[in-house]
């Protein structure tokens, strides 16, 4: 989750409330206060559905409402400018959507610059899907000359990218510039690359990779040009979040004209979206009994514009909110505005009868049998690897469920047998007194289907076939299962000392003395007698 660093002094100034008061209430607005806090700042995590809170300015705006200092819709003044951005057809296949704005009259403090940079990063992650969907460029507009052009350019086009001193082709930037290496994959399939040029063909930006060095934002920058490009209309939301955040720092938003051969629009569009809700629906979902006026009051604290019209509440959702998809999203905000800590918990009256799953009833019986036989339960991982599962067990590898991108080669398949994982547990417990008798009861995956197995093993100097045969007999007797026994071909057992269990013509398990090569493969030195039973599947096909 995105972490926003809030400098107390900066925050107090922007919110108009003391730091203690703010910190006391901020979690109830929807935040996780992080572990990092100093005398001057605190790191707070906000949820990914609220990108408008990814900057300290956005947080301050929300807090003002939540704490009742300034409620209702925050309206932003926008001057209508005449800067033109022309979108050429050549970019439509690559990265068709663009939103732009100008923000003037900014005085950048250190906190403000840090906040803007972090906001950009978090938006690239949260809404931008790592720049694939949305990428943001921020420029010192005084260095370039409008009108601007957004086009698909020849990869051989050269300019000086940010943090470099000499010209590079766009193709080389993807190979050599750190940002090109990191994000170049987004453009891998395209023949032309997105580019924003000024009237003199100077490069502002090569979205979504890197800006030109020319428009670098410096201490003395006051007027910004912002471009947001991407593949989804969320581009415009992103732009709104950036420009309103800058406006909170005193910037004046100025619109631009964006035009292609078919259409023309003014960007940004800061008009709130309009929703009509009914108190009774909100009351039904949350479980409170608010009048339309009370509901409106709660929403006003969440900085929605509200007006009560008859039995309805008309809600204006700010243009920077990216999370409102459905009326329930507004109802949740009403609950936050009301205060989660003020909601009374109440048990529902739904009357139903509890019922354990039949498999769990069986598993409990088997645990009772195994405990009675002196076996300790273990719960090993179901993820394992072929080395342990087959090679160390002297078993021929067969088809198993394999993970495509394992995080470690130790865990790249799902077990089809539990016994190898018990062997691993013995390996880990060599320093403890013998005899050790352990069992595990749980899932295996066979041909893509979940099955339940039982495995048990006994290690000590006298562990032998007859010991485990007695255990198998006891388990099957208690479970009321009739089986016949025949010699096993399982190479995990010593030749002539392994057996298969057959019930109704089906192989339901095996037991015997493990082959010394298996024992040695797990770095063990004492005889091991073991069993494994296939109990059944989730559909209720059980051996008993």
């Amino acid at each position, binding site marked *: 989750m995105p972490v926003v660093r809030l400098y107390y002094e900066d925050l107090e100034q922007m919110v108009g409330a003391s730091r203690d008061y703010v910190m006391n209430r901020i979690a109830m607005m929807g935040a996780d206060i992080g572990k990092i806090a100093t005398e001057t700042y605190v790191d707070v995590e906000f949820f990914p559905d609220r990108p408008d809170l990814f900057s300290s300015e956005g947080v301050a705006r929300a807090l003002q409402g939540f704490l009742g200092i300034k409620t209702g819709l925050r309206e932003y003044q926008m001057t209508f400018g005449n800067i033109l951005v022309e979108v050429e057809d050549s970019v439509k296949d690559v990265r068709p959507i663009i939103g732009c704005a100008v923000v003037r009259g900014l005085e950048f403090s250190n906190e403000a610059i840090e906040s803007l940079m972090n906001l950009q990063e978090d938006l690239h992650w949260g809404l931008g899907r790592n720049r694939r*969907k949305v990428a943001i460029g921020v420029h010192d507009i005084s260095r370039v000359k409008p009108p601007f052009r957004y086009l698909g350019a020849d990869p051989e086009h050269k300019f000086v990218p940010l943090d470099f001193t000499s010209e590079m082709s766009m193709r080389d930037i993807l190979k050599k510039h750190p940002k090109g290496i990191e994000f170049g994959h987004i453009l891998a399939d395209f023949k032309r690359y997105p580019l924003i040029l000024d009237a003199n063909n100077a490069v502002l930006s090569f979205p979504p990779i890197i800006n030109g060095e020319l428009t670098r934002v410096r201490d003395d920058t006051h007027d910004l040009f912002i471009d947001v490009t991407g593949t989804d209309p969320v581009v415009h939301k992103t732009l709104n979040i950036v420009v309103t955040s800058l406006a909170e720092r005193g910037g004046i938003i100025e619109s631009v004209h964006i035009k292609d051969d078919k259409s023309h629009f003014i960007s940004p569009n800061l008009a709130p979206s309009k929703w009509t809700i009914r108190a009774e629906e909100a009351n039904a979902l949350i479980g409170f009994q608010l009048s339309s006026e009370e509901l409106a009051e709660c929403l006003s604290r969440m900085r929605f514009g509200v007006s009560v019209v008859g039995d309805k509440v008309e809600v204006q959702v700010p243009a920077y909110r990216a999370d409102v998809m459905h009326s329930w999203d507004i*109802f949740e905000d009403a609950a936050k505005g009301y205060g989660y800590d003020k909601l009374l918990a*109440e048990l529902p009256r739904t009357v139903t009868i509890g019922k354990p799953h039949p498999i769990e009833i069986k598993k409990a019986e088997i645990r009772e049998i195994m*405990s009675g036989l002196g076996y*300790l*339960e273990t*719960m090993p991982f179901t*993820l394992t690897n072929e080395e342990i599962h087959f090679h160390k067990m002297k078993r021929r590898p067969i088809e198993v469920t394999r*993970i*495509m991108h394992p995080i470690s080669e130790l865990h790249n398949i799902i077990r089809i047998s539990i016994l190898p994982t018990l062997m691993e547990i013995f390996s880990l417990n060599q320093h403890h007194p013998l005899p050790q008798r352990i069992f595990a009861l749980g899932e295996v995956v066979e041909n893509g289907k979940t099955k339940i197995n039982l495995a048990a093993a006994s290690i000590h100097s006298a562990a032998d076939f007859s010991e485990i045969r007695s255990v198998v007999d006891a388990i099957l007797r208690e479970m009321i299962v009739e089986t016949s026994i025949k010699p096993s071909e399982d190479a995990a057992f010593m030749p002539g000392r392994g057996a298969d269990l057959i019930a109704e013509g089906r192989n339901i398990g095996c037991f015997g003395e493990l082959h010394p090569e298996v024992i040695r493969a797990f770095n063990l030195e004492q005889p091991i007698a073991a069993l494994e039973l296939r109990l059944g599947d989730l559909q209720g096909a059980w051996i008993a």
Partner: protein
Amino acid sequence: MLSENEANVLRAISEEHSDPQTIAKKLGVKVETVRASADVLSEKNLIRVLKHVDEIVILTEEGKEYAKRGLPERSLLESIGNGKPMAELKDPSLKISLGWLRKKGWAIITGGVIKPTGIAPRGTDEEVLEQLLDNSKSSSDLDPDGLTTLKNRSLVIIEKKKSWKYEITIQGMKLIPELGEITESIAHLTPQMIKFGEWKGNNVRFDGRLYSVRPYDVALEAEKIFPGKKHPYQRLIDKMREIMLEMGFIEIKGEIIQSSFWNFDALFQPQDHPARDMQDTFYLDSEAEIPNYAKIKEMHECGGDIGSTGWGGCWNPQIARQEVLRTHTTAVTIKYLADQPHPPIKAFAIDRVYRREAIDATHTPEFEQLEGVIMDKDVSFRHLLGVLQEFYAMMGFQEVRFRPGYFPYTEPSVEPEVFIEGLGWVELGGAGVFRKEVTAPFGIDHPVLAWGLGVSRVAMLKLGLKDLRELYQSDIEWLRKTPLSINI
């Protein structure tokens, strides 16, 4: 209680046999046995042991010779008659005898001739020598001067010898009549003794003999044994299952391998959502059949007919077919609800889920998750808070508070926190009401209250674990020693 030997020795001492040798002879046992028994009796204050150290005088080989033949100076005196010139006594071996003759004043030397003085009384040394001829004697029975002389001439050596004498005490005397006829003390009873023995206190008369049953030091440590047991973690899981069952929930299960459809799409997770990345989810190189997806597609793309905006873009069934290891039990829950869309439903699952996380002390790629859902007419978010409060209270967390949360498929969402002594408020699980976008495509017309939590996190808190791996790669001693009755 006395052993057979101890009883016999005590009896012998009471009959005025006072030294171990005599008692051993009488009882027909080894002297060491008598002494061991006597030590026990003495510890019990039944007898007193008197230790005595004797000096036994023993002749050396030279001494034995003289005892038989007389001292050499006596022999020399007899051989010189009335006098003998010294010149005839050149043999150097006579030098010592000559010395003693003169020292004892039995002879004098004048003018190169040795002459007896005529005074040669029998000395105490000679007496002692004679006394020792047949037997060694205690030094106290011999003339001290004679003994000293012999000792100085290395004709005798003195050996110290310990001896013991036993005297019965009053307590011992009192015990004598009680000793009766005990003949044997035993540790184990035979089945015959159990069946036929006649009991008198600690003694059993069986087959004409009386046996005493040896008492044990009951405080002595015994060998440690451990019962076969359920895993402590399983006990916690079962406790949670019992709570859910008591609260009226039905237990459900599902496949480990799920299609992305059930794991993500059915829960209205957009197909480009970061949680669906290869980074976080274990994908399999296989595809599953998926149900009719028209409504899901419509919901994702444009919000269906419930007044939602949807995610926009184009929903791709191919992505939905991709199989994964379930990342949450919600995949199982939503499938169950899709099959049973009519109220009321209260269902829960506790099962293993998989996340693409590297193993460390607080992360494992698989762990147990508990999830509960309630679907009914007229249930609300406040009811969800009520269920959470009740559930956590039954888990032993009396103090619960709620703060806003975010989960992709619930709205509203809440993060419950419980108060734990020493840790403060700890976030435990997540909850919310399933979004309409989730329920509507399956014809579920009533709110679905849902909550879930990572069971292994609760296990860490309840079992005081520092490392999650302990649950799955357990130390057998930990399993053995964690008490069944531990409060989980």
